[in-house]
């Protein structure tokens, strides 16, 4: 099993006004690439071995900013694939996670932890497409 810390909030860039978005896009080099690489709900922030957050030592993992997804029986190959990075369109420097958990498709317990099996991974994870800038 591996434990995945997952982004569980709205990114500040998604709350940005159109005016601010245009201003930054105009004034700041690479802002569009940064925007496209922004964290979004379901993105994997960190992965840790079994029990890191769930063995009782730690009181929490930063909920509600983050959610925790534990995947049973996850082999190393699948773990590495899950956290694979992919280039953002148009640049090889900006990278984002290739995969994202569909948090709405997961069952969270009262401690905000979802536990799934590796066999369920494909239906719980999205191979992300590039979102278009707002506006």
């Amino acid at each position: 099993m591996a434990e995945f810390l997952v982004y569980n909030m709205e990114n500040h860039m998604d709350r940005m006004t159109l005016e601010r978005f245009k201003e930054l896009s105009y004034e700041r080099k690479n802002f569009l690439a940064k925007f496209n690489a922004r964290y979004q709900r379901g993105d994997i922030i960190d992965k840790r071995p079994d029990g890191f957050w769930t063995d009782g030592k730690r009181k929490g993992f930063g909920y509600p900013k983050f959610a925790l997804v534990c995947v049973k029986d996850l082999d190393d190959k699948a773990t590495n694939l899950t956290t694979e990075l992919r280039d953002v369109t148009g640049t090889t420097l900006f990278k984002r996670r290739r995969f994202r958990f569909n948090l709405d498709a997961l069952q969270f317990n009262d401690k905000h932890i979802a536990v799934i099996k590796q066999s369920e991974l494909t239906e719980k994870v999205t191979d992300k497409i590039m979102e278009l800038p707002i506006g």
Partner: protein
Amino acid sequence: MAELLTYVDPDAVGGGTGVDWANAYVSLSIMEAAEQDDFDTANNWLHCYTRSSSGGDDTTACTINGSVTSATDYIKIEAVSGHRMKKTGWDAAIYLMDVTGDCINVWDNHVWIDGLQLDATGNAIEIANVAAGSWCYISNCRHSGSGYLVQVFDADGDAKVWNCINNGGGRFTYVTDGNCDVYNSICYGAATDGFDYNAGTTGEIINCVSFKNGDDFNIDGGATVTIDYCASDDGDGDHPVAESGGGVEWPDDFVDAANGDFTLKATSNLVGAGIADPGSGLFSTDIDGDTYATPPSLGVDEIAGGATELVVAGLNVGLTLESPVLSQLHGLTVAGMDIGLTLEAPVLSQLHNLSVNSMDCGLVLGSPTLTQLHNLVVASMDIALTFGTPTLNQLYTLAVASMDVGLTLASPALTQLHNLIVASIDIASTLGSPTLTQLHNLVVASVDVGLTLGAPVLNQLHTLIVASMDIASTFGEPVLNQLYTLIVEGMNLGISLEAPVLTQLHILSINGVNIALNFDNVLLDIGDVTLIVDGIDIGLTLEELILSMSTAQVLFNYPGKERFDYQGKAKFKHSRDKTFTKNIGRS
């Protein structure tokens, strides 16, 4: 502009919300994801403190990418007091980013990283994807990995680096694009280049030290980089500062560079050798928070308190320090005075180096408190040096040279003294019964009269060299049970050992002594001893010499006859010792 505080501790077991130490984030990377914001619009700046409450490392690479910053609304990542990198070496007990690959990628425009220990196989800090007008401050950081401390990888990148140390085999800078200014920093032991700038890049390197690298500075011909007031093996740049000597590790400049201790010695050439305010107001303090003097020292360490070097010179009468409190003084130099220096009971608790030179009368140490004194050098004085009972329990090296009269040690506690060098003194040196339990090396040379050792405790002494003395050296009943090497040579009279205990003596070499060598009741009862006696004009006296070892080799080499007087009561217990008996028979 409001300060937003957040905390990172890899050992934290709280709620992981970053609001305080108990609930700190467990990695810098998680903190960055959680705290991203448009700080510019909110008019806030993010202040992240780091620590490791139980010595755990932060092993997750961090990319600082998701925020909007400005010159006043920036992100600062700072190791908290007690967990900041040290000038004295790597500390496994404090916060450390230890990452395979890059530790921190700085892609936001205004980021300040302060006080961190970083160990990267790639870049400790890489600056890329930033905009024009951005900056990245890197201060008081230490990198010990095989990668680079800082890489600037963007034409708009602008790094300002100060008080940093790179000593892990990788480069300090690798500037492929943009600008990188480095002030008061040290690069030591880079396998290839210390500071590396590609064509088209810019920067200035001021008040820095770069040594024992493949190439201290590798500046491409197409780069525009100023090197000024720096010290290096090659003497690169404008206003180069020479090292103080002593060897490739610059031991006269730093306490222990080979083991990562870049504490500056007060007597170093690097002290006060820089140019003031190299960053034009960017910083004013050293790695310890001490204000840089004017002019400042090179490297990361200012001598504490700034004006901590007291020089007294050219006075006809003298200097008397009765009971001043000079607790920040690191260096005291007294020279060219007719009468003397008297230290009665001053508190000089930070004094590291005391140098007294070229005085007609001498130095009198009453009972000052000199608990941090590491080096005491007394040279070229007409009369004498007298030690009462000063507290010198950190003294490492005591060098006394070129004096007309001598050295008197009553019974000071010198429990850390490792090196005692007495040379070129016309009359005598007297060691009463000082406590010298850590003394490893005792060198006495070119003294006209001699050295008298009463009954000192020298139970760590490994090497004793006595050479080129006209009259004699007398050892009372010293305990020398760790002595490994005893060399006596070039003396007119000789050396007397009365009843020493020399149970670890392995090498005894006696050469060119004109008169005599007296061993009285010497016990040499361990194996593998080599005894070499060569070129003695008159004789060797062995009384009650007991050679109980089984594999001793005793070599005598006398070109003529009648040159060796044996007044033997020597006892030989093993067959091998009979060779010794045969050689004695030559006399």
